[in-house]
């Protein structure tokens, strides 16, 4: 059976690869330093493949058919479509066996993910993934989530999804060491009059709860209230699902920086892998 040997959540502002030097130096060093630490953990644990969740940005789906959750099922996926992202375009390997198993297991557990072939992996994946493995050889199973188009699944529903996702990964027999990654958030506003704002108070509040592992106030928060922290902030659904997959264990907040030049609250939270958590 597979173990989830590493899990982390990280913001995925496009500017982090498109124009990283635009951020104040100390902020950039703190954020990228956290991603380097995560990269070291990936090497130490010998992760064989990752499963990554992020929000859909109308890259793969549109309003004529928008799933709440969709899983890429190919052997490889093309990314990124954004030519300005400063990440080389490449067919990124996946693990079709793991993807198929996750999909089947989720359905058996009562979830209803959409099946997707030909999925493209945009900045939501590639910014974070490129920092994890800039050779882009580490297999990645992509999962996109509807985080911006109401009616939206609630935080509680994404928590429940995360619990089933964790079980699905851990019941796979084709690999031994899998990583789980969430991309998106923290607070940001796009395409509306508050574009450029960052709700630092929300970001600290949210990260504090992940650090304790007590997600109760996050899970009973109505979607309308979450939207007060930004219309892009709903991408934190991926973070909540990841925390759920890791049993609501306390996360280590490796960094938080409100980078106004990137119009995004930037943070990284790392969780102990299964073997470490079991010993604790």
């Amino acid at each position, binding site marked *: 059976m597979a173990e989830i040997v590493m899990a982390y959540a990280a913001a995925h502002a496009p*500017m982090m690869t498109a124009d990283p030097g635009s951020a104040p130096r100390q902020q950039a060093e703190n954020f990228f330093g956290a991603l380097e630490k995560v990269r070291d953990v990936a090497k130490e644990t010998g992760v064989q493949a990752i499963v990554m969740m992020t929000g859909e*940005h*109308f890259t793969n789906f*549109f*309003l*004529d058919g928008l799933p709440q959750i969709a899983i890429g099922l190919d052997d490889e996926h093309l990314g990124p*479509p*954004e*030519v300005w992202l400063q990440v080389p375009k490449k067919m990124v390997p996946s693990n079709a066996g793991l993807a198929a198993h996750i999909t089947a297991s989720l359905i058996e557990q009562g979830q209803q993910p959409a099946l997707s072939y030909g999925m493209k992996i945009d900045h939501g994946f590639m910014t974070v993934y490129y920092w994890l493995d800039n050779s882009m050889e580490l297999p990645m199973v992509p999962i996109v989530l509807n985080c*911006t*188009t109401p009616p939206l699944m609630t935080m509680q529903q994404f928590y429940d999804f995360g619990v089933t996702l964790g079980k699905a990964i851990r019941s796979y027999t084709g690999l031994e060491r899998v990583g789980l990654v969430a991309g998106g958030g923290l607070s940001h506003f*796009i*395409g*509306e*009059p*508050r*574009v*450029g704002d960052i709700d630092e*108070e*929300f970001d600290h*509040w*949210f990260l504090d709860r992940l650090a304790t592992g007590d997600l109760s*106030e996050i899970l009973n*928060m109505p979607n309308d*209230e979450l939207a*007060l*922290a930004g*219309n*892009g902030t709903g991408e934190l659904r991926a973070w909540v699902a990841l925390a759920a997959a890791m049993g609501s264990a306390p996360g280590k907040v490796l960094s938080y920086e409100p980078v106004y*030049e*990137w*119009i995004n609250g930037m943070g990284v939270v790392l969780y102990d892998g299964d073997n470490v958590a079991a010993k604790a």
Partner: protein
Amino acid sequence: MSLYMVQRCLFDHLRRLEAAGDGPKPAIVTEGYNLTPEEVRAVTEPDIGAIYRMGAHPVLINGFCRALGYKRADYRPLLVDTSAAPVKVKARWQK
């Protein structure tokens, strides 16, 4: 005619731009979407504020603004909505 068709027009335009890559940027196509004259004006002029007030999805507005060359939050002045009352709701994380 419908908000969906305005959004479809924008979405298709962004896809054409993506397909064009570094080549010449195609102009936005409005034929075939059954848009009203005001909708055609808004997307071709373009009038970002009008597109916002129609209710277009913020991801599309953001993508459209980026395609027009706006960086970061530079398009914020175009989206001032004087008709909307400020939201005064206290969220649980606010002290």
